[in-house]
């Protein structure tokens, strides 16, 4: 049986299909694995800083700013956050990076249609994390007055992750928006969000993959 552009039935669906407006599949492993690897590296770096904040190791690695890293990790801001959160902020960051890797690994290569909730959850984990990292770096410079090399590296990784993950989240949201535009039914959009098959939703997805594969012309869709 040849692969179909339609999502239903899954037995015959093409899971590697390209999705408009991109010329590639944003849910493909080639797109997601680099995100997972990068997130895992950030997880290791943040864990290293968290272990120092827990005093399970005596020193934190910093080839650029020397002891300034320790001053950042032992700053009043970091201590206050530890008191509020219950765990060191670096450990919370490490868990968030691990979450990026976990939610990046879960799902098929057509999860933008089959599990939009998972892609959106992935986006919720990645995008606010990037923003929080940026805020923490600003805090380093303005409030603490010191620089922390590993904090800067993890913040940079966070921003790169936002750029890398954006396309898949955009496609999932566009799919749901298209389902809403075609049906105006909250129930169908809700079911599409949670990954239940709906004929109208599958047709919306077909529209997205059909325009890029050439099986449906954009002119035909606009009519």
């Amino acid at each position, binding site marked *: 049986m040849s692969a179909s552009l339609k999502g239903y039935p899954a037995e015959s669906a093409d899971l590697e299909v390209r999705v408009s407006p991109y010329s590639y599949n944003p849910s493909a492993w080639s797109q997601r694995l680099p995100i997972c690897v990068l997130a895992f590296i950030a997880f290791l770096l943040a864990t290293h800083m968290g272990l120092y904040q827990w005093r399970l190791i005596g020193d934190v690695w910093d080839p650029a700013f020397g002891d300034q890293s320790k001053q950042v990790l032992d700053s009043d801001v970091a201590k206050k956050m530890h*008191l509020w959160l*219950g765990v060191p902020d670096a450990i919370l960051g490490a868990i968030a990076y691990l979450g990026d890797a976990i939610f990046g690994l879960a799902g*098929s290569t*057509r999860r933008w249609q089959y599990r939009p909730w*998972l892609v959106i959850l992935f986006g919720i984990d990645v995008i606010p994390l990037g923003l929080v990292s940026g805020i923490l770096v600003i805090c380093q410079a303005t409030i603490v007055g010191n620089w922390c090399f590993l904090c800067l590296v993890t913040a940079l990784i966070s921003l790169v992750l936002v750029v890398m993950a954006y396309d898949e989240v955009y496609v999932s949201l566009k799919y749901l928006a298209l389902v809403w535009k075609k049906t105006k039914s909250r129930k169908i959009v809700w079911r599409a969000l949670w*990954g*239940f098959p709906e004929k109208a939703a599958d047709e919306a997805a077909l529209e997205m993959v059909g325009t890029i594969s050439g099986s449906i012309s954009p002119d035909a869709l606009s009519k």
Partner: protein
Amino acid sequence: MWARVVEFMLSCWLAASPFIFHHSDSARALWWNDYVTAICVGGASLLSYWRPTRHAHLFTAVVAIWLIGFGRFGLEGSPGPGMQNEIVVGLLLLMFALVPNHAAYPPRFWYSDSANSLSPKD
């Protein structure tokens, strides 16, 4: 099912936590909390392998929220190592519990034979 395997491993960690973090004999609540949550998480992860109870892993999310709340607010003041362990394990479990069984495949309903199939995909 890799998420279920990790959940089971975390339940073993929870069961060993009273010994790793040297909970005092007077900290009964902490001992009980670790054992009861370990049994709940381990049980839910195993039940997820049985098709009629395949959604049992969602119960782990509830246990995870309890662990985070207990670790953060269970005692007054800054949480000690044992309580921080509850928070960290809770956060980890919350993430893994949301990963579906057979996550690498399309959901069961997307297969034409989903109603009668014995396919494990869900």
